[in-house]
């Protein structure tokens, strides 16, 4: 027999650990259609039956207000899994059972897994499983996913339930609402039965949703106007009776039902006012004075390890491995085989160098995700959001956006990927758009070159002002975008502060790998194609012959063509335009291209000859405008691929880079034209 089981549970209930324990390495990670929320599927190991496990997004409720909740609900209703395995954190049972009360109503068999039993026992509390099961009307199994306990029992129970149900709807006879409400529900149910016949929806669920005034459910059920009006009368009657809206009344009823069960089934060991370990840690971490220095210290440490000594060592090592060992091997091999010059160039300079420029980030990305996973799994991330929220709210962002933005000063690519820790889609999109404005390390050589040539007296001050400019543009963009394209009701900042937990090494590794491998796989495909195209544009002319002189290449011609576009910004000659085009490969490439085009060869940012050459064609004002443009315009290819992956939409990806380039143009233009008006040169 083959079955499909869906995992449903609150965030932090141990659902991911449970999923990993059940499926092992058979997981497949994708995205839910049209959104950036991850979809995970896998096959259960260690069972005779063929069982597919679907990990639904972590949610607190099945309300129609958040994308995650709508996805989970639609999946259950449309795809009808054979069993819903509802994972409940037993140490936080009241709030976790709230989702259970909603899942129970969908008409699909439910098995409740009381997870984290070990933590409950350690506290000295007890749960009466039989009372709980009887009150909820569903089977209950005890588990401790982090220790691997109870998982095979859970799967066995789910298989039993699936076999007994044989794909038919299971109707719960638990009545959890007030008598008046139950009466209305059963009356509405009767009226709905004929209307719902082909829709294959549980009438009790439909009745409750319509009574609540759930717009999404109304849309789905698509019932006759007269029927909807009829039900509205019931809603109005009850709302008058309770002097409150039905959504509130239903939620109140659910929690009352739960409090009642919990008081019967859970025995809490008497606890005085003693502080738990979590409380003690919290005393320091969210302390009035210590909290922000602590946060900055943690961030500094993560930043230093990721982008400092350890991170740059991995970059140098990977770079040497790819561009020397691999490229050297390929060259020898191709030469031995008598390959044509263009083929050798394509493989070595195009593919290997192009892929190499991306792959060098892989170890760094893994290191960053390792630390982000520690911050997340330990519960610190939620505290950081709690501490920083006030500061970021003004930009339409929540406290959690701070981390990706800060990582952006190191490298935009992993920083954009760090935005994945934000649950809210709108916050995530805005964070992705703004993060590249934080000046990354690769842009520094460009500033170093120009400031050495034009602002030798106060080099560091000018560079600092560029960094500041990026932050200011991000702030203004945040305000602008929040009031235009990303408008809409702000995501409520109502967030759980989970108890501190020591992350397991296995969990961290899975977490890190899950996030990192996507970069290699998906970014790799975009980058492979793009690096070949860019190499081609750099080395070939329009007549498809290989050229030595960059000005003859496709990029050279295109650069000359688009150069007038930069004239209002002060650098309308083709050399700058071509340099900016090659900056798309990697921002530091702007320096090398400038060197080649100014006839001083491929030099570093400290080249005196190049500085002298630039002094001939730039003025300090033009140089500043050029630096501002380099700071703000579309990020490099690797970051572009990361944006595409995280946005999961071409429309948003193109909007992001389009917006950034437009912002760069406007800001540079304002600097140059404004500077001229002020009589600067």
């Amino acid at each position: 027999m083959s079955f499909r089981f869906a995992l449903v549970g609150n965030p932090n209930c141990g659902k991911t650990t449970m999923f990993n324990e059940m499926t092992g390495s058979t997981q497949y990670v994708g995205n839910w259609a049209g959104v950036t929320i991850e979809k995970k599927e896998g096959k259960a190991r260690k069972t005779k039956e063929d069982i597919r496990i679907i990990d639904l997004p972590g949610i607190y409720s099945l309300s129609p207000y958040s994308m995650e909740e709508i996805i989970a609900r639609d999946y259950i209703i449309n795809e009808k899994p054979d069993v819903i395995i509802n994972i409940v954190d037993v140490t936080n049972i009241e709030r976790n059972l709230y989702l259970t009360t909603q899942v129970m109503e969908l008409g699909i068999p439910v098995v409740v897994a009381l997870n984290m039993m070990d933590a409950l026992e350690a506290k000295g509390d007890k749960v009466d499983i039989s009372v709980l099961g009887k009150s909820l009307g569903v089977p209950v199994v005890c588990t401790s996913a982090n220790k691997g306990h109870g998982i095979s029992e859970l799967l066995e129970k789910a298989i039993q339930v699936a076999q007994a149900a044989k794909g038919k709807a299971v109707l719960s006879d638990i009545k959890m609402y007030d008598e008046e409400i139950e009466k209305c529900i059963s009356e509405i149910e009767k009226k709905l039965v004929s209307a719902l016949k082909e829709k294959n929806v549980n009438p009790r669920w439909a009745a409750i949703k319509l009574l609540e005034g759930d717009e999404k459910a109304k849309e789905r059920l698509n019932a006759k106007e007269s029927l909807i009006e009829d039900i509205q009368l019931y809603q109005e009657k009850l709302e008058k009776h309770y002097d409150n809206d039905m959504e509130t009344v239903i939620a109140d009823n659910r929690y009352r039902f739960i409090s009642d069960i919990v008081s019967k089934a859970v025995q809490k060991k008497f606890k005085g006012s003693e502080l738990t370990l979590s409380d003690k840690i919290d005393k320091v971490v969210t302390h009035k004075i210590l909290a922000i220095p602590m946060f900055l210290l943690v961030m500094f440490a993560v930043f230093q390890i990721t982008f400092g000594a350890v991170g740059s060592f991995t970059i140098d090592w990977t770079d040497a491995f790819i561009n020397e060992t691999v490229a050297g091997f390929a060259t020898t091999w191709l030469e031995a085989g008598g390959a044509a010059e263009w083929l050798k160039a394509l493989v070595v300079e195009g593919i290997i160098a192009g892929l190499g420029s991306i792959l060098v980030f892989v170890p760094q990305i893994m290191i960053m995700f390792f630390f982000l996973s520690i911050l997340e799994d330990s519960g610190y991330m939620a505290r950081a959001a709690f501490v920083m929220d006030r500061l970021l709210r003004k930009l339409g962002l929540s406290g959690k956006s701070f981390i990706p933005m800060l990582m952006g000063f190191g490298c935009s690519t992993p920083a954009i990927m760090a935005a994945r820790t934000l649950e809210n889609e709108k916050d995530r999109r805005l964070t992705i758009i703004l993060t590249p404005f934080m000046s990354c390390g690769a842009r520094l050589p460009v500033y170093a070159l120009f400031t050495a040539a034009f602002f030798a007296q106060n080099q560091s001050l000018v560079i600092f002002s560029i960094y500041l400019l990026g932050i200011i543009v991000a702030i203004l963009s945040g305000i602008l975008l929040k009031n235009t394209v990303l408008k809409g009701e702000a995501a409520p900042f109502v967030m759980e502060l989970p108890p501190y937990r020591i992350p397991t090494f296995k969990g961290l590794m899975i977490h890190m790998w899950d996030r990192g491998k996507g970069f290699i796989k998906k970014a790799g495909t975009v980058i492979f194609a793009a690096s070949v195209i860019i190499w081609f544009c750099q080395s070939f002319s329009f007549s498809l012959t290989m050229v030595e002189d960059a000005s003859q290449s496709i990029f050279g011609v295109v650069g000359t063509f688009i150069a007038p576009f930069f004239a209002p910004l002060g650098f309308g000659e083709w050399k700058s335009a071509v340099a900016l085009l090659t900056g798309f490969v990697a921002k530091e490439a702007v320096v090398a291209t400038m060197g080649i085009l100014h006839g001083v060869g491929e030099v570093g940012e400290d080249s005196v000859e190049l500085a002298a050459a630039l002094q001939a064609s730039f003025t300090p004002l033009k140089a500043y405008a050029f630096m501002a443009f380099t700071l703000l315009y579309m990020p490099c290819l690797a970051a572009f691929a990361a944006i595409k992956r995280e946005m999961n939409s071409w429309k948003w990806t193109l909007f992001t880079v389009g917006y950034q380039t437009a912002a760069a143009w406007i800001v540079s233009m304002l600097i140059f034209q404004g500077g001229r008006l002020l009589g600067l040169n």
Partner: protein
Amino acid sequence: MRTLKELKPGEKAVITKISGEGAVKRRLMDMGVTRGAEIMVRKVAPLGDPIEVNIRGYELTFRKAEAENIFID
């Protein structure tokens, strides 16, 4: 009627009503902030907002703007 905003860290009260509407109100209720529940303010964030509360045996945080909509006894 008092709102939760007037409660000082360490003080407890019983929720009598939640005003407001839409996603924020629903989210608060989904998280267990419902009529009759006991709520305790634990602390205020270092920058003065949001606040941290204890409800139904766990820690929850939301902004003062939300606290103003929660009426207490």
